[in-house]
Each structure stands twice: as structure tokens, then as C-alpha cells.
């Protein structure tokens, strides 16, 4: 039971780091970036390359994934994405899906189609036996790392000048512009940071899941679920949504209720059912604000 909660927590935390950038950029610019997963994939492959070609451990891979993905994100934002803000949601979807296809084929070309594995650093390998429960060290690391990251993010948003400007811009970009806040610049920085986080999440996750060129498509649905449930106006929304979905997903696969002697495997339904129910009763998401005046 505790282990399930623990696993779900690790999974949810990871989802959060992967999805939070998408959530903020969506809230900020009302821009649907389905290619977000491509950054996560890039982060994972950066860790793989560093490990396989240069023999560097994941501890080097994580910051490298963050920095490189952030830079790539910034460049793409300035050169390509900036031209799409005034286009319709549908065109944004088409454009970013196009990028996903390109990234998948490119990774396939350079890295091959078969799944890649990132080895966990030696000191995080194995389990921590606490008597009543055994805890995987790497997952513990993921939880602690992501929790710290969340705290830093939350502090950054609430305590810094940039954070308050960002919040103002997410709240109402037009008003923020009127107040002399350079929303374009804030967006570029946020986009780069969000892409970096996705890369970081990809590198972290690559040591748990395996990594293959299908990654952006496989996880796109998960990201969208997190955002739909968590809303786009805060980072606490996606955070709790990620944890909820992570735990629900893991628990749904662990427990198979029996009805009339038949095992009903609910694993495949749980998170989608939660999402649909949440959206039916709270169309703006579990933690989103009601669209008021």
C-alpha cells in the first residue's frame, strides 16, 4: 500500500516536471504547444548520449538536458513559435504536431528506433529497506528532487519580481502589457525555462521508463490530461493534478476489483475516467478558476 503510494508519487512528480512548462505557456500565451514532449524526449536523449558516448553519469546528464533544451527552446521560440501566436488554435495544433513528427523521425535517424536506457547512478541504485517498506532509491531521489524543484518554482513565482510579472501576465496579458510589462520577453523566458524543465523531466524519466522515438506522442496525452485537470492559471493546479493522476494510475493498475467473480481490470480506464468526470463537473479543471467576468 505504502509502496503504491510512493510509486504513484514518484510518477506524478515526474509528470509534473514534464508538463508544468506546457501549462504555463498555455496559460500565458494561450498557445497550444503539442511539441512539448519533443523537448522531453530531447532531454532524455541528451542524457543517453552523454552516458553512452562520453561516459558521464546522470548527474551530469540532468543539468545538460535542462540547459540544452532551454537554449533550443529559446531559439525555436524566437524563430518559429513567435510567428504563430496570432494564429488559431487549430493551426497551432497542426504546426506543433508537424514539429513532433519531424523530431521523431530525426531521433530515429540519429539514434535508431530501438529503446534506449539510461543507467541510474551507482549510489541511487537499489532499494532502501526500512523494515516495513522497501523504497527504491532512485524514485526517492526523483520525489525529493521534484519536490525541491516545485518549492523553488513556487517561491520564484511568488517572491521574485519576474514571478509577479509572470503571474500578472498569465492573469491578463492585455492588462499586463498596459502596465508596461514586456509580456513577449517574459513569454520567451518562460518558454525556454519550461522547455528546459521538460528536458530535465525527460532525462529523469529516461532512467525509469525507456526512451524511444515514440516518446512525444506517448506522453502528449498524459500532459494534456494533467493540464486539463489541473487548469492553466497556477502551478499548484498541475502539481496536484499530476500527483492525483500518478497515484490513481498506479493504484488503478495495482487493484483489480472483482465483480461477480470476474476480475475487472480498471488500469486502462482510471485516469481518463477521472479526467472526463472532472471536466464534466468542472470544465475549467479541478484547480482552474471559473471563467468569470
Amino acid at each position: 500500500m505504502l509502496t503504491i503510494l510512493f510509486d504513484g508519487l514518484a510518477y506524478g512528480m515526474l509528470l509534473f516536471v514534464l508538463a508544468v512548462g506546457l501549462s504555463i505557456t498555455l496559460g500565458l500565451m494561450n498557445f497550444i504547444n503539442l511539441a512539448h514532449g519533443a523537448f522531453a524526449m530531447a532531454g532524455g536523449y541528451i542524457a543517453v548520449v552523454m552516458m553512452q558516448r562520453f561516459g558521464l553519469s546522470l548527474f551530469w546528464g540532468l543539468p545538460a538536458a535542462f540547459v540544452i533544451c532551454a537554449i533550443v527552446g529559446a531559439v525555436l521560440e524566437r524563430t518559429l513559435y513567435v510567428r504563430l501566436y496570432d494564429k488559431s488554435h487549430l493551426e497551432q495544433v497542426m504546426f506543433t504536431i508537424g514539429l513532433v513528427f519531424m523530431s521523431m523521425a530525426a531521433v530515429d535517424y540519429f539514434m535508431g528506433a530501438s529503446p534506449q536506457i539510461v543507467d541510474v547512478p551507482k549510489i541511487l541504485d537499489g532499494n532502501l529497506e526500512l523494515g516495513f517498506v522497501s523504497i527504491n532509491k532512485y524514485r526517492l531521489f526523483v520525489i525529493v528532487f521534484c519536490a525541491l524543484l516545485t518549492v523553488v518554482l513556487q517561491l520564484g513565482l511568488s517572491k521574485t519580481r519576474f514571478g509577479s510579472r509572470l503571474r500578472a501576465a498569465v492573469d491578463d496579458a492585455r492588462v499586463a502589457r498596459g502596465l508596461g510589462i514586456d509580456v513577449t520577453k517574459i513569454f520567451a523566458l518562460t518558454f525556454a525555462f519550461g522547455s528546459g524543465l521538460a528536458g530535465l523531466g525527460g532525462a529523469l524519466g529516461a532512467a525509469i521508463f525507456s526512451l524511444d522515438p515514440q516518446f512525444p506522442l506517448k506522453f502528449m496525452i498524459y500532459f494534456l490530461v494533467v493540464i486539463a485537470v489541473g487548469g492553466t492559471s497556477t502551478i499548484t493546479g498541475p502539481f496536484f493534478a499530476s500527483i492525483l493522476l500518478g497515484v490513481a494510475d498506479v493504484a488503478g493498475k495495482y487493484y483489480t476489483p472483482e465483480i461477480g467473480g470476474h476480475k475487472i481490470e480498471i488500469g486502462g480506464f482510471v485516469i481518463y475516467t477521472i479526467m472526463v468526470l472532472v471536466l464534466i463537473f468542472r470544465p475549467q479543471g479541478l484547480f482552474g478558476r471559473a471563467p468569470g467576468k
Partner: protein
Amino acid sequence: MFDRLTRRQTIAAFTLAATALTPLAARAEDTVKIGVILPMTGPSASTGREIEAAIKLFQAQKGDKAGGKKVEVIIKDDTGVADITKRLAQELVVNDHVAAIAGFGLTPLALAAAPIATQAKVPEIVMAAGTAIITEASPYIVRTSFTLPQNTMPIAQWALKNGVKKVVTLVSDYGPGIDAEKTFVETIKAGGGQVLDSLRAPLKNPEFAPFLQKAKDLKPDALFLFVPSGFGAALMKQVVERGFAADNIKVIATGDVTDDEQLNNMGDSVLGMITSHNYSADHDSPENKAYVAAFEKANPNMRPNFMSVGGYDGMALFYGALDKTKGDTDGTKLVDAMKGMAWTSPRGPISIDPATRDVVQNVYIRKVERKNGQLYNVEFETVPNVKDPFKAAKAGK
């Protein structure tokens, strides 16, 4: 200007266009085509690449002549979709006039093409998909890969012999996985063992943790695993992470999990894992040594896996049948020629069961070991000439 053309001119123009654009129906009598439909993109792309490489190697080694004719291979990407596969099969038959269709990475795709094989009387050589029922879908289907029951029964028997009483199974939730589960469970029960639970993980699921945790919590003597080629690395990563060894739970599987292609990526943690399968790149025979050397030479960074031998032997089967019919491409004659054919493959001696058109082969019990700095499935027991138990049981009734 269009309306100024006379009707005759228009018709002439259309006819001209039609002739110019229809693919050349050049049925050069001395060329025989085989259409290979494989997953070249998507999650099973590695299967497609392995088989493609094996086919190229086969033609490079054995030449492109069989039965006095030139053999031409056409490769198509199935994109993992059944209706596309069916359309490609149909087009290969009616447009390219192939003498056989082959490949088929996934069970539903092999089944989707079956009606075409029957209707057009063209052999369908299944080089990869492993659900037992496939060969029953058409009298023109011949298989050179393996069946899941065939590969699973020996490991279940081995487990019984080695003191395993209580087991949990975890398989991918689709045809082959369910075949493997059924065979394993039935064999264990027949041998007096106990099955604590049978878990099925969605095929496209990156997170195995909850299933593995459940398996661990049930405290069996052994956990049996099956996932298709390409998914093994992700599964084993999480298996290792769960630490089954500490609880004295044996982790056993079919060789799909410790796929040769990915084995090196899995790291030392899979050392000692016991699996049963029809092929290992480490198989000790002159045929296999030559095969592996040639394959790795032609495809650096790739190691041949069981998918590749399925493709290699598929070509051997087609060449053999053509030789037998002396180049006659009549589908019924080809299939008849294939029935009962026996040869020595890189995996060992194999034959085609004349009754079921399914492959009969040795299944080996192997252990992951490090050899020359690389990980291999090292064979230590051989179960000779295994027929598909599923169909054998049916025939016995």
C-alpha cells in the same frame, strides 16, 4: 480551350494518360517478386529493421536466383495499422503480382492479410508474429518465426523441475501475451503448481511498477514475464528496480524479454536471468557463427535477434520452395512445396509441420551471461523439435 477539343481527342488524351501512368505491368517471366510488409516506423520499428537487414543479408549471401528465376524483394511499411497492411498486401498481389507476401510484425496485421492470401491463393510467410492461431486463418499461411505457446511451455516445465510451486504471470495485454499466459498457466497447473495471479499490462504502457509491485507482494516462487520485442528493456529496468532477488523470487521469461538486440542495454542487472526461446545470437553452431558475423559486418551497431532469423528463414523457405517447384509461382504448389521442408537454420534444425504449416524447432533454455564484454543468452538446455502445443493439443483431441 478544353471545350474546343473534340470528343475523340479527349478520349485519346485520357487513354494516353492512362497508359503512361499505369505501373508497368512488366511481368518479366524470369523475375519472381516477394512482397514484405513490415513495421518500419512506430513502436515495433526495430522488428522491421532486423528483418529487413536479414533479408538483405540472405540475398547478399545466397544470390538473387532461386528455381532459375531472379527474386526481387519489395518492402513496405505497415505503420502498425491493420487496414493499411491489408491494402498493401492486396496491392502487392494485384499490382506487383508478387508470388508471396511476407513479414507481419503483429498478429492482427498477419490476420488482416489472411483473406488476401486465401482469395488470391498466394503464400503468406509469417516472419515475426507469434500468436498460435495465425496459421489457421488461411491454408496459405506458413510461419518461420515461432509461436508463443511453443516458446513458453519449455520454461514452464523447467520451472516445475526446478522447484517452483507458486507463480505469478505478467504479460502484455494482447494476443501473443495472452497465448503465453495461457500456456504457462496451463503447464504449471498440469504439473501441480499454483498460479497466484495473472497480470496483464497494457501494451503501450511505460509504467510497469504497479504490476511488478503486485507480483512482489504476492510472494511467488517465480514471476513469469512476456512483452514483445522492443519492450523488454523498459520492463527489465523496472524489474531490477523492484529487487525480486532479495525476496527469492525467480524472474523467468520467454526470450522476447531478453531480446538480443537490446540485451546489452539492460546492464549487468539481468545477469543470470533464465529464459526460453527459439534463438540466441550466442547459439553454438557453425551456421549461426557465420550468420552473426556476416550480419554484424553488414549492419554495424546491430545484433541479429530472433526476428532477424525469422526473416532469414522466411527467405530460405521461399527460395527452397521455388527450387522445388522449379520456378513455378503457383501459390498452391509453393505452399505444398513448403510443407514438410526441413533445413538447418542459424537457430538450429527447423522444419515446417506439413499438417499445420507452422514451424517446428528446438527451444532452448538460456541464462544471461557476460561473454567477451557483451551480454548474451547462453543456452544450457535444449528441448528438441517442439511443435506448437496449442495446435498439438487440438490435434490430439
